[in-house]
C-alpha cells in the first residue's frame, strides 16, 4: 500500500468564515493504481491532493506514505519526499516563464540529494513528444505542450506517486485525450501510481477507481 490516510481534517479560516475543506477523510491507494477524484468546485479536491503531495499538512488525522508516518516529518524530510517520490502536475502548469522547457524539467535536480535520476531531461522531453521544443520558453508552447513539459518535470524525479490536479482543465478535448493517452502509457511503462483530480467525467472514466468528494467528505 502506497498511501494510507485516516481521518484527515483540513480547515481554513475561523468563526463564520471557517471552511472544512477535508472532513475526516480516509483514503488508501495501492501501488500502481490509477485513481480519479471528482467533485464540485470547492469540494476539497485540491486540498486533499496537496496533503497527499506533502505540500500541505492536515490539522488532524494520520498519513502514511509508503509505510512512513509523514506527520512527524521535518521540513527537510518532506522536501526530500517531494523531491524524489512525488511528482506534481498542476492545473495551471506552473512553469517558470523565463526558463525554457529543458530548464523547467530540470528544476527539481537543483535539490536532489540521492542518486541522479534514471532519465535525462532531454529523454523525457523526447518521451512526451517535445524533442523539437526543448529550448522553447513556455510562452512559445501551446497549452497541451506546456502540460507535457509539466509531466516531464514530474517524471524526472522517477516518482512513485504522480499527482495531477485537473491536468486537462486548460486543454481542448483532442489535446486532453492525447495527454491522457500519454499518462496511461507512462503509468504502465513505469508502474507509477496516479491520483488525478478532475470534474470531467470523460477523464475520470479512464481510471481504475473513481472517488467523489462532496463538501470535504466522500460521497457514499
Amino acid at each position: 500500500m502506497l498511501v494510507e490516510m485516516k481521518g484527515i481534517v483540513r480547515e481554513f479560516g475561523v468563526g463564520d468564515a471557517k471552511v472544512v475543506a477535508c472532513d475526516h477523510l480516509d483514503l488508501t491507494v495501492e501501488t500502481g493504481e490509477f485513481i480519479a477524484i471528482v467533485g464540485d468546485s470547492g469540494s476539497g479536491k485540491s486540498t486533499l491532493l496537496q496533503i497527499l503531495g506533502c505540500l500541505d499538512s492536515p490539522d488532524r488525522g494520520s498519513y502514511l506514505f509508503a509505510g512512513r508516518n509523514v506527520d512527524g516529518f521535518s521540513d527537510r524530510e518532506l522536501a526530500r519526499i517531494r523531491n524524489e517520490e512525488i511528482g506534481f502536475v498542476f492545473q495551471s502548469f506552473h512553469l517558470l516563464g523565463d526558463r525554457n522547457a529543458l530548464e523547467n524539467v530540470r528544476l527539481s535536480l537543483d535539490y536532489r540529494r540521492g542518486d541522479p535520476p534514471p532519465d535525462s531531461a532531454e529523454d523525457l522531453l523526447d518521451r512526451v513528444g517535445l524533442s523539437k521544443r526543448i529550448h522553447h520558453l513556455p510562452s512559445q508552447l501551446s497549452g497541451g505542450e506546456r502540460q507535457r513539459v509539466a509531466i516531464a518535470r514530474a517524471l524526472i524525479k522517477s516518482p512513485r506517486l504522480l499527482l495531477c490536479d485537473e491536468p486537462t482543465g486548460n486543454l481542448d478535448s483532442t489535446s486532453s485525450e492525447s495527454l491522457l493517452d500519454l499518462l496511461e502509457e507512462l503509468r504502465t511503462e513505469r508502474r507509477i501510481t496516479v491520483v488525478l483530480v478532475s470534474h470531467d467525467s470523460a477523464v475520470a472514466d479512464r481510471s481504475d477507481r473513481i472517488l467523489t468528494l462532496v463538501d470535504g467528505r466522500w460521497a457514499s
Partner: protein
Amino acid sequence: MSPATAISLTLTAIARHPMRAVLVSSTFAIGFASVLSIIATIEGGQRAIKHDLDALGTDLIACLNPIRVGPFPEIGEVEEGLRAIEAGDVRALAEMLGSEVDGVIPLSVDLVVTRRGGVAMTHTVLATEPAFGEVVRSGMLAGRFLEADDFTRSNSSEVVPAAIDEALARRFTDEPAKMVGERISTVRGGKAMEVEIIGVLNDPITLRKHLQLLDGTSKARTIAARRLEFLNLYLPFRPEVDRCAGVLVDARDSSDVEALVPRLKSFFSARAVGPYYHIQKLWVGQVLSMADRLGKVGHFLWIVDLLVVLVLVASISLLAVDESFAEVALRRAEGATVPEVVAPVLLEGIFLALAGLLPGWLLSVVILREGVQPVLVWEPYLPPLAIWGTPLLLVVTAFLAYLVPARRVARLQPAVVLSGHRD
C-alpha cells in the same frame, strides 16, 4: 543543495534581473562611497587639526629660567637654593631623552639694537637651534631657517647667519623678502656684530601662537607692540656665549606631553635646577575635544547613511521577492527546503553588496579628490579599521536588508501560493 548550486542559483537570479541588480548594487556603491567619504573627511580633518596644533607647539614643554628672565607675577620666584638652567643641563637632558622626543632646544632671549640706513630699532634676539625651525612650515619662510652649518659658521666668522621676522624686516625695507642675503649690523650685549639674513619668517599669527610662551620671558615684554608683532632676529645658539633663558622640549606628539612633564621635573630637581614649566596643553585639549565631537557627529551621519541604504535595498528586495513568490512556491513543491530557498535570497544581497564595493570605493576616491579636498584643503584619511570595517558593515547591511524578504520566503506556504489562494 551544494554551495556551488546555491551560488549558481543566485547568480542566475541576478542575471535574470539585470536592471534590479544594477539598482541595488548602485545603492550599495553610493552608500559605501558616502560612508567612506564621511569617515575619510572627518578623520582627515581631525588629523589635520591635531597636526596643525602640534605644529603650533602644543607638543612643546617650555622650561624657563625665572632667574634669567626676571621674576614677574606669572612665573614667581625660584625656590631658595635652586639655580638656573645652563647649557650643560640642556646637553644632559638631550642625552637622557635621546630620540624619545623631536628635540631639546635651548633658547636665549636678548634685547639688541639694530641699525640700517638711518633707522635704529630695539628688538629681541632669539638664539636657538635648528630644531626650533620645525614650527616654521614652508610658506611661512622666504629663504631658510637656521641649519647645522650655520652654527660652525657663526663660531668661526665675524658674520653671524640669522633669520628675521617679516615684521622686523619691514622696519628697514619695503620688501622684506629681498633682505635674504643682505647684511645688517647690530649690537648685542654691548658688542657690535654683523648679521647675514638667511631667511625671512612671515605669518605672525602662527608664530605668535607658537611663541606666546616667550612673551613673558622677553626683556622687551613691557613694550606692548613687541607682544603683538614679532620683531625677532633668530641667531644660532652658542653655549659658550648665550645664557639659557630656558629650554624647549619638543615632544613627538601632544599626547606624550603628560608623561614627559614629571620626568623633566625629577630631572631638574635632581640637578637642583628650578625652572618654571609652561605647557601649552589646556586649550589644545579643548580644541581636540571639539574635533572629537565633530567626529562623533560624523559617526552619526554615516550610520544614518547605512540606514538609508538598508531601507532602500530592503524595499527593492521586498518587491522583488514578492514577484518571485510563484517561483519559490514551485521550487518548494519540487523539493527545496526552507533554507534552500532562503539562501539564494540572502546570497543575492551579499553578492550585490560585494559588487558595489569596487565602484563605491572608486566613487569615494572621486568625491574626496574632486569634491572634498579642494574645498577643505586637508588630506582625507581612512583609518585601518575603516578600510576593512566599512565593507564588512556594508555586507552586514545587505544581509539585514535581505533578511526581510528572506523571512517572507521562509514563511511562504507553497500550497497556498500554488492553489492561487494567495492575494
